[in-house]
């Protein structure tokens, strides 16, 4: 008797359909001191699972929230639902291929995920990037930063229950994305930067779209912001909520807009300059409050600064090649290099070790969202369930980067 492998049917008695009593997951056993503390329920407290399928988690995140009524007593983010083992994959790929594995990490602003490994590999190869390529990188990165921040602004409103800003944000983002698609060919995962330059020079369609957009970008974004920025409900839900002070932020390893919202003017573009940023003129916007509203406002100020940078780059763009002369097969000398760029969420870094072969021996990817997600617990303790979402939205994590 042979049983051919056919399409499985749920009537097959060998397929386990759990009985109702089996649907409850067993409570996890505490493995650490901290987890034991978390799992210990006091009178009137209960656990609420937010995610992995929950309308407001950015990606596939699960947060186990210990609540007392509506009040959050403690919470424990559970990661790994999106873990792809990118670092391991990169160890098994050659240097060019590694770039397209890091590309989908932070899918909202994926140019930055390319810029960091490319920076590290260029250090390993000791190659000078042509100036035109540097300018193009700055230009595209700032565009991508604006795309990310406008989307953040809509997301933040969506997590607070406003449904309109996200769609307006997507309209703005779409214009930038279409523009970058004309330049790079892709809409989400651009895969545009190469070791030693960029893949293809600026083309006419990109430039005409860019010029078109630049003429009304600032006004349009300002107009969109009018919906939320002064809205009393929005301000009351974000002001004074999730307040982070500068000392704690530094101790927690926070970078990017979240750190600048606490009043620390730390920006890799200033403090660890890369590409042509030292030659450009721009401010590092900061706020002193450190609450959700400050984090929101810092990002909005950054959009304006980015528009300013783009303007300068377009005026100073030199002529020349966009790719350095490099062998087809990248085979750097043994060594170590750390490349970091200032992404829309903070310092995005890659630590690459070469052992002289065509594959990285070890490639460590540091994602700022990963660090910032740690803050959700300390910042929301004692607040309400609704604030968990508001604080998390204001920290702006992207789970693709967190889970790697």
């Amino acid at each position: 008797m042979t049983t051919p492998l056919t399409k499985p049917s749920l009537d097959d008695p060998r397929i386990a359909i759990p009985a109702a009593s089996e649907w409850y997951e067993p409570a996890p056993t505490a493995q650490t001191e901290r987890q034991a503390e978390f799992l210990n329920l006091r009178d009137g407290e209960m656990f609420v699972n937010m995610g992995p399928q929950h309308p407001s988690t950015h990606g596939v995140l699960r947060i186990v929230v210990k609540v007392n009524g509506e009040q959050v007593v403690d919470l424990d983010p559970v990661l790994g639902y999106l873990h792809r083992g990118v670092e391991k994959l990169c160890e098994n790929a050659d240097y060019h291929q590694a770039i397209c594995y890091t590309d989908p990490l932070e899918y909202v602003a994926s140019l930055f995920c390319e810029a960091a490994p490319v920076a590290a590999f260029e250090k390993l190869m000791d190659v000078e990037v042509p100036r035109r390529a540097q300018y193009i990188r700055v230009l595209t990165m700032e565009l991508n930063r604006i795309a990310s921040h406008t989307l953040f602004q809509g997301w933040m409103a969506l997590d607070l229950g406003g449904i309109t800003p996200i769609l307006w944000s997507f309209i703005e983002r779409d214009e930038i994305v279409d523009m970058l698609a004309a330049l790079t060919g892709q809409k989400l995962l651009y895969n545009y930067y190469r070791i030693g330059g960029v893949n293809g020079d600026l083309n006419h369609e990109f430039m005409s779209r860019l010029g078109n957009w630049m003429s009304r970008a600032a006004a349009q974004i300002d107009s969109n912001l009018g919906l939320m920025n002064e809205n009393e409900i929005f301000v009351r839900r974000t002001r004074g909520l999730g307040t982070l002070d500068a000392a704690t932020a530094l101790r927690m390893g926070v970078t990017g807009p979240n750190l600048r919202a606490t009043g620390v003017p730390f920006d890799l573009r200033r403090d660890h300059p890369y590409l042509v940023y030292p030659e450009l003129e721009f401010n590092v916007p900061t706020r002193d409050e450190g609450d959700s509203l400050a984090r929101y406002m810092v990002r909005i100020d950054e959009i304006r600064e980015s528009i300013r940078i783009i303007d300068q780059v377009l005026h100073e763009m030199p002529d020349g090649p966009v790719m350095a002369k490099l062998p087809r097969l990248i085979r750097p000398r043994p060594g170590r290099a750390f490349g970091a760029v200032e992404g829309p969420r903070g310092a995005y870094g890659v630590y690459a070790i070469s052992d002289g072969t065509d594959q990285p021996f070890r490639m460590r990817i540091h994602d700022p969202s990963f660090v910032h997600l740690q803050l959700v617990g300390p910042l929301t303790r004692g607040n309400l369930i609704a604030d968990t979402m508001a604080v998390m939205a204001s920290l702006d994590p992207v789970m693709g980067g967190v889970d790697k």
Partner: protein
Amino acid sequence: MVWSRMTPGGRALAVLLPLLSVGGAVLTALLVVAGPFIGATIGANLPIVRFLAASVITFLITVPVAFLLIYMEMKIIALMNLRIGPDRIGPGGAVMSVVHGLKVLKKEDFTPPSVDVPVFTLAPVVVYLASFMTVMVIPFAPDLTSVGLEFGLLYFFAIGGLGVVGLMMAGWSSFNKYSLLGGIRAAAQSISYEIPLTLSVVGIIILTGTLSLPKIVEAQSGSLLDWFIFRQPLAAIIFFIAITAEANRTPFDNTEADQEIVAGFATEYSGMRFGFFFFAEYVNVFIVSALFSAVFLGGSNAPISLPFSPEIVVDLSGLGLLLPIAAGIAPLLGTLAIGLPIYAISARIKAWQALLAGFLIFGALSTAAIGFWAWAMLPPVADLVWFLLKTFTLIFIFVWMRATLPRARIDQLMGFAWKWLLPASLLNLFVTAAAVLLTA
């Protein structure tokens, strides 16, 4: 045999026509024989018949109203989002919500194994019942209300408050923490906002001396300034905020805040049970808007009296037999009269296109004429139009708010009710009472 050569339509006719004629004859005979008896029965039990008819009509009203509101919400929010919104099914996507309703009907009605089955099953019924029972007292026009209760306002608040019991039942029986939180939020929110809601209309009750909604509408029948929104502006604001919370609309939709507690009390519901919650929500929006327009916006009173007298008396009885002949020929003549010039305008327009356009234009014109005639001849039609106009304006405002505002946090919401709305409504009550005392 003739049958084998008949088309399906012909066969249907061949079966139906004899049946219809026989059935019609039997029915006529029955009416002739039993007519007086039926008439006498209806006459003797008029209250019961009236009640049954009113119940059926109010129940039937809620369904198209909910469909219309769902469509309005989809479309208006889409337009404000710079989208087009539903546009595929029906003109402008208008049938979209009906299709949604059908979809919900045929979806699996799943009962999770751990729920409290009787309560779980009953909860959507209670919610829907509470919202459609309140439709009964809404004064659409003078003499056009299902049940003209003397204590209509009180009935409204009492039955309207029943809905929260259903929400609590749903939240509790679902065996889900999100549902529980949603149910408790609903209870807390409804109870808190019931108080300013009720207190804000007490001023009007003092002014009019009645709880009957038709009489409150009647009290505003003078000029525009007699509307209570101008005589009691503070009460109107409080009332508006409170009904927003009562109907669980943005910015007070905490009971089903999907970013926080997934879908609140409705998390575990699917299929038509969820449909009941969904329908009840929109029927609620309609009835609170209707209540606001009845209590504060003068209900069915026209805001302006037309400068000309709309009294048109057309006596058609003099035409005699010509009337039916004219009625039969008029559409044909009208279509031709409008279609021929269109045909003559351009050579590119085909004859059938011109005729179609002529028919449509004639149809629109005659509908407008008949509507105007009805408006002029039948006062309830004009009143109903005014009432619905006000109500739908309010509904538009609700949808507009939903497209604009984020959600208030639950503690801010409760604080707002107890710290601001309640004192304000008490102040309003005090001032009104003092004014009545002093002027009396």
